[in-house]
Structure formats: C-alpha cells, structure tokens
C-alpha cells in the first residue's frame, strides 16, 4: 500500500500541498482528480522522491522510499524520460541494463500491442507514440505500483483508446495504480478509487463502486458536488 500522510509542500510562496493524506492499495486503480495546478503531479513526484516535501510522510508498503524501492514502484510522467537520440530498442537495452525487474517479453508484447517499430528513433515519434513508449517503459517493469501522470493528455483519440485498453488488460492486473487526470470520462468505468483534490488538499476520497451502489452517484456527480457546489 502507498500511504501519503499529512504531506505539505510549499513552492516559492505558494502552498502546493496542504496536509494531504490518502492511500492507494495494491490491486486497485486509484485516480487523483483535480484541475490543473491542484497538486496532482507534485504529489506523484513527492511519492517518487523527485521533489522534497516540507512535512508529512510517504510510505510504500510501510517503508520510506529508497533506491531499492525503484524496483517496486515506477512513475510514468507526462514527458519522455529517455534520451531522444535512442531508438526504442536502445531504450529497452537501457532499462534491461539497470532494472532487475525489466520484463523483456512483456516489453515486446507491448511493442506489438501499441504497433511501434523498435528501430524508430524516439525523437522522431509523434506525441501519441511518445506517450505510448513512455507507458511501455513503465508497464514492462514487473513492479507492484505504477504511477501515471496524465497518460491521455494531448494525444489523439485512437491512442487514447489503446492506452485505455491497457487498464482492462493483464498488464495492470494485481498491481497498484495511481493515475492523475482531469479528463475522467476516459477511465471512469475503470477506476476503483477516486481522490478529489483541490487547492493542495484532498477534498474527497471514495470507493467508486461503493458510491455507485450506496448513493447511486457516479464520479462525475461527486465531482460536480465537490467542485461546483
């Protein structure tokens, strides 16, 4: 389980995260929802120790993040993290070189799934294909937790469909996923838990299925209540 406990962070003069707390369980898809600037990316980076926090604590399976934890959790940011001069095949070699949990078979499977050419240079890829490579590099790691930041942002409808299909496949099964988005429609039917964020705080944390069953409300209904009032 990923536990975010009372995390606060100030950036310049702005309080980006204010005493934020939530959990994300293994085997579930947790969606962080909020408008741009709500603190979604910051909390993802904080979990991965890519930005420092001022107060609070973040635990992954009860432990603070360490170098070994990067074989257990991965982050797929909304930008490419591989040298643009590499081909897709070279980026596979890089990952295999550094990660014990790199799953070459799964990487090849994903390559076919996304219809990508391993000889293509990363810098020559379209935005949609770049997003797919990014996703591929994360998903081909046999990790317990995957953090995805805006995987649908700025890409064409067909690529979105392909990426959305990943969530219903065995690629995600039994893993804990935290995904951020401000376009909930693409994945509303896929998520287990929604964490509504606004102004650096958790405004609402809910089990989507439970909410639907007990109160008959969809995520969008609750978002309307929380954000519109």
């Amino acid at each position, binding site marked *: 389980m990923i536990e975010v406990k009372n995390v606060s962070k100030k950036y*310049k003069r702005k309080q980006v995260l204010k005493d934020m707390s939530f959990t994300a369980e293994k085997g579930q898809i947790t969606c962080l929802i909020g408008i741009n600037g709500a603190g979604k990316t910051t909390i993802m*980076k904080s979990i*991965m*120790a*890519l*930005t*420092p926090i001022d107060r609070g604590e973040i635990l992954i399976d009860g432990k603070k993040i360490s*170098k*070994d*934890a*990067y*074989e257990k959790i*991965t*982050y797929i*940011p909304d*930008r*490419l*993290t*591989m*040298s*643009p*001069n590499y081909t897709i095949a070279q980026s596979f070699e*890089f990952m295999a*070189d*550094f*990660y*014990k949990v790199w799953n070459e078979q799964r990487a090849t499977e994903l390559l076919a799934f996304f219809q990508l050419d391993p000889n293509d240079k*990363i*810098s020559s890829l379209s935005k949609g294909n770049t997003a797919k490579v990014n996703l591929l590099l994360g998903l081909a790691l046999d990790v317990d937790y995957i953090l995805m930041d805006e995987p649908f942002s700025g890409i064409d409808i067909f690529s979105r469909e392909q990426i959305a299909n990943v969530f219903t496949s065995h690629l995600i099964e039994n893993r804990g996923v935290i995904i951020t988005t401000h376009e909930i429609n693409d994945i509303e039917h896929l998520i287990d838990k929604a964490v509504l964020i606004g102004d650096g705080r958790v405004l609402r944390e809910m089990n989507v299925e439970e909410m639907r069953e007990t109160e008959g409300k969809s995520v969008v209904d609750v978002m309307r209540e929380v954000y519109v009032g």
Partner: protein
Amino acid sequence: MNHYIKLVNFEVKRFSKLYLSLIIAVVAAQIIGAIVTSSFYVSNAETTMVRDQMTVSDYILTYGAYSLQNFLFSEYFFLSVIFAAALLMIYVFFIWYRDWLGKSSVIYRLLMLPTARRNVYFAKLTTILLFVFGLTAMQIILLEVVNQITQRIVPDQLWMDESIIYIYSTELLDLLYPQSPLLFVFYYVIGITAVAVIFTSILFERSYHLKGIFLAFIYCVISVGIVMVPVIVQIITNYFYTNEIYLLVTGFSVLTTALAIYLADYLLKRKINV
C-alpha cells in the same frame, strides 16, 4: 559499482559524437597549422636568402631556425587548445542541464534508477575526467604527428631538433603536462575540485532555483576560500617552502572535493527538484 560503470558508459556515449567532432577539429586545425606555419617559414626563408644574398647559416643566425616552438607559439595551436578547453568547460554545465532542459527529461529516469543517486554524480564527473585525459593524451600523439609533418616540409639545414623536455616546458604544454609529479597532481586535483564544486553548485541551483543561485555563489566562495587557506597563511606568515604550499593546497582541494561530494549526495537524496 556495476551501475556506476553502466552510467559512465551511458554518459560517454551521449557525448561521443560531439567529442569525436571536437577531436577531428583539433587534429585538423593543428595539422593545417603545422603545414601553414612551416611552409610560410620556408618560403619566407628562401625569398629572404635570395633577396639579401644570405647563406643558410647567415639566415639562421639572423632569423633563427625552425623548430616545433614556432608551431607551439602559433595561433593554430593556442586557439585549438583553448577551443577544446572551452568546449569541455561548457560541457561541465551541459552534462547536467541537458537532462532537465532537453527534449526529454532524462533526469526523471536517472533519479529513478535503482542505484544510489550519487552514482549519477560520480558518473558525470568521471565522464568529464575521461574526456579531459583523452584530449591531453591525444595531444601528445598529435604533437609527434605535427613534428613529423613539419620535418618533411622544412629542409634539414633550417630545422632545429629540440629535446622533449624543452618542448614540453613551453607555457601551455607545461600547464597540460607538468614535468614535476607534484605539480602534475596539483594541477589535476585542482581541476577535479573545480568540476566537483561546479557540479554541486548546479545541484544547489536545481534544488532551490533562484535561492539556489545565491546559495551556489556562497558555496563557491567558501570552496575557493578553503582551497586558498594555505596561500593566505603563507601571505601572512611566509612560513612554507613553495613545494609545501603546492602540497597543502592539494590537500585542501581534496577536502573541498570531499565536501562537494557530501553536499551533492545530500542534495540528490533530499532536496533535488525535477
């Protein structure tokens, strides 16, 4: 250790094309320079000897024979060395900033590798050192090539052979290849310290942004201060021999490098911001 070597390999590969271009440029500039300076000398000597009805001995007595020194004091040699040094100096900054500000944010990947983050720092530092040593080693071979080319252009009567020790005591070469082991260690330790301090300053800036520039400045001043302690003591007391000063400054530089590594490790672990 394994990850560190792989990271060095990664960094070296990333700069290899530009580095190879730099080597080609330096080699071309110096070979062209050797041909131009020696040909100019020979043609000038021939014209002068005919015009002034001088013998070769008269000419050498008046204008001097041609030696490798003529090339070493030419702009072809000087500018090519300065150009290579300047490019490497720029790369000291570029090696970090390209990971943040390039087309892709490679720094995300580097910081999420299952290895101690200080390995990223060490790998970049090692890469810079490898490039520096590579260039200085290449320059030794290149000087011999230049020597051979020049000897073929300049007639024997106008050529003056010089000892290696004499050639390498020329200003710029003496800086690149100090003949005293103490000075050699001194220059290269100072160089390593300078790169380590610049790297840590960059990490201050990357961790604290605008405030980081101020912190980096203060940190640089303190680092220079530590390295200069023996020199300041010497100015006040005039107590040490010159060689002792070199030794002490080398020792204080090692301390400064250790501090730079400690701070970089702390910043990469606790304060870095991507």
